[in-house]
């Protein structure tokens, strides 16, 4: 089945189905889509040999990189971490289940003693084995270190829930527990450089905001929305401040992603509202612009994706309110979908090659 080297041939029952030229003028010197080249492809090992011969890499580098390419040695780092995470999660799930089921038979003293012992052991381990504090990113001293801290944090949650439910220490003032928990988790996350616990802290703080509002006599979606914005302002501002001060700057990405998603959800819920959506729509446009600009300048494409998807959903929901005809709605999706795709392709053409 002959085919031109610079043509893609698609065959149907042994005959050319169509032939499509694929080469553009700028790609003459690059590897191509031609199937006839398959036999001449170079594996990574062949390339390494050639690079060594050309002097692009030293013989020592060649030996190292070739062995890594052959997975010699094979790293089980990721697998062991996943096993530890699953182990901690399963343990805490079992602990919670056991405490829930057997609390009356065991008694409060036994339950609280056991939970406190586990918590104390975890904290003792972390404080006694933890590395010297540094504002920069600090690697964990051992494989299990991060997971012991995570276990301790989750056990704290179980114990706190048990304390309040059984003993009503704070008479149902859950928001105070959550605030205290958030503060503790922020401290532990920054103390031991732990992203698991940082995420717990951020979700605890979000829970505190939500529960505080639920205590109020008059609350509705708009109040939640405003406090979601306040949460974003507080967390985003705090994260930016800490990053500016050089305190665990690598956490900033986590802050930004959490803030961006909560902000977009809050603003979108305002846009979905049938009344007073104008200011929320403006806020959505501003948020999309900011997210897009941030994503492109910092090459963090998650923010480009947020701007595109949340923005499209918000604008579409507003525009489609006036459409009653199915044909018009479908036409809208075709036209706007193509427009979005073209716009994003233009962005991708500029930034897309580097992942």
């Amino acid at each position, binding site marked *: 089945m002959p085919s031109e080297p610079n043509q893609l041939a698609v065959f149907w029952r042994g005959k050319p189905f169509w032939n499509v030229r694929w080469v553009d003028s700028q790609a003459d010197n690059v590897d191509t*889509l031609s199937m006839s080249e398959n036999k001449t492809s170079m594996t990574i090992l062949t390339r390494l040999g050639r690079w060594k011969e050309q002097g692009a890499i030293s013989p020592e580098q060649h030996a190292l990189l070739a062995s890594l390419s052959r997975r010699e040695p094979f790293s089980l780092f990721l697998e062991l971490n996943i096993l530890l995470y699953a182990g901690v999660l399963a343990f805490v799930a079992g602990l919670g289940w056991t405490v829930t089921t057997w609390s009356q038979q065991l008694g409060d003293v036994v339950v609280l003693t056991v939970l406190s012992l586990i918590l104390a052991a975890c904290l003792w381990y972390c404080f006694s084995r933890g590395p010297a504090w540094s504002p920069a990113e600090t690697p964990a001293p051992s*494989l299990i270190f991060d997971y012991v801290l995570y276990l301790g944090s989750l056990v704290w*949650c179980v114990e706190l829930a048990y304390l309040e439910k059984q003993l009503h220490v704070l008479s149902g003032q859950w928001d105070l527990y959550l605030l205290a928990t958030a503060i503790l988790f922020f401290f532990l996350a920054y103390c031991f450089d732990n992203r698991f616990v940082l995420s*717990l802290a951020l979700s605890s703080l979000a829970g505190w905001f939500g529960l505080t509002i639920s205590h109020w006599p008059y609350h509705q979606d708009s109040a939640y929305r405003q406090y979601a914005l306040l949460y974003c302002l507080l967390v985003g501002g705090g994260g930016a401040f800490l990053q500016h001060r050089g305190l665990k700057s690598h956490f900033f990405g986590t802050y930004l992603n959490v803030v961006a998603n909560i902000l977009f959800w809050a603003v979108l819920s305002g846009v979905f509202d049938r009344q007073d959506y104008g200011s929320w729509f403006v806020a959505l446009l501003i948020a999309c612009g900011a997210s897009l600009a941030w994503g492109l300048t910092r090459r963090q494409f998650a923010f480009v994706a947020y701007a595109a998807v949340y923005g499209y959903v918000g604008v579409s929901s507003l525009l489609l309110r006036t459409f009653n005809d199915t044909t018009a709605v479908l036409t809208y999706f075709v036209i706007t979908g193509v427009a979005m795709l073209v716009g994003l392709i233009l962005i991708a053409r500029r930034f897309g090659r580097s992942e």
Partner: protein
Amino acid sequence: MRLYSASAEETLRARKFVKDWAAESRIDGVQNQRLEQETVSGLRTTNIFLRLVFFFFTVIIVGATVGLFFEVFLSGSSQQTVGIFLLIFSIVCYAAAEVVVSQFRLYRFGIEEALAVFSVGFLCAGIEIAFFSGYYSSQPRGDQFLIPLVGSVFSLWIWHRFGLWYAFLAAMIFAPFLPGYWTSSHAAQHMIVAMVYSLGLIWIAAVRSGHRYDYLEDAYSLAEALLWFGIYLALNLKLSSLDLPARWWSPVTRNASEFSRSFYWATWVLIWSLPAAILARGIRLKDRFVIAVGAIAAILTFICNKPYLGWQRHTWDPMLLGILLTGVALFTRRWLSRGPGGVRNGFTAARLSGKDKHWMNAGSAVLGLISPQSVTPRPQTNSDFRFGGGASGGGGASSDF
């Protein structure tokens, strides 16, 4: 028959290696620049976020276009006409996917992926509506098995042609729908599915041996891992309910628990043997995906063992499992680190790739947000325990007892 040349894909793979080595400072900046220039594949790639967004908008465009076509031109048409046009749209989508790749050199770009996915979906829906609509009976038509069969074969073709791993998964998902049309015996259905996956596994194992260290190795590795997992699920009677998809697909109602004693206990032996076999193969090949499937299968076997034996579950079972998993991880780590240079039998617990760190960072941030809601218990309103308690946020501290 792959749409991309081996040369281009091999170059792209080399580019990823170079990027990883540079991130780990195994090559310096000058070397990185030079090697990057030598690894220009000519394929247009994008990052995962834009890829997802492209997929999303292509789905909107294709869905709306097809909907618009039916709304404008075919409203009130017969089912057969709709089915025929769906088949035509399937061909159009497939051709469009081929064209955007060949013309614009797109590689894992989202657009061609959505088009390929739609071509499979439209094909199956088209066959169903064009040839089987209006057939309502307690017994499926004998030739109705063609729908999952065609879906499976076409998905395999998409996998082979475009190299999309989830097309292989789709082909596997179609397979359990097949035996329901041939036999009413549950045991036979499980066996047929396991046999189909086993045949696929034998084929993949034979083919992949010729692709060690080349660009196809990852694709075959993932395919093999999925097939192993499929076999495990087909044989684990406590996990797989082949009755369920059959009920979705056809109006036939079947009785559950009709396995013979010997079949039941044979599957129990197999669910204990398979994880060991999978792990052994994964370790021998140093295959990350196969090792992962072996580990998952082993954990599932531990979880399913008591229900299999008819024993009562205890509330502390997850704790024991957690201790076991942690113990295995720590023992393995310690055993490996005590080898010369932290290496034993070609394995190490040390991190060698920047990708591992990237995955760890992303995973820990996301899982930290999710996990508290999934591990803390719900209020104890009755004796049944349910996972998934905990109010939003609060690290799950808002759960009741």
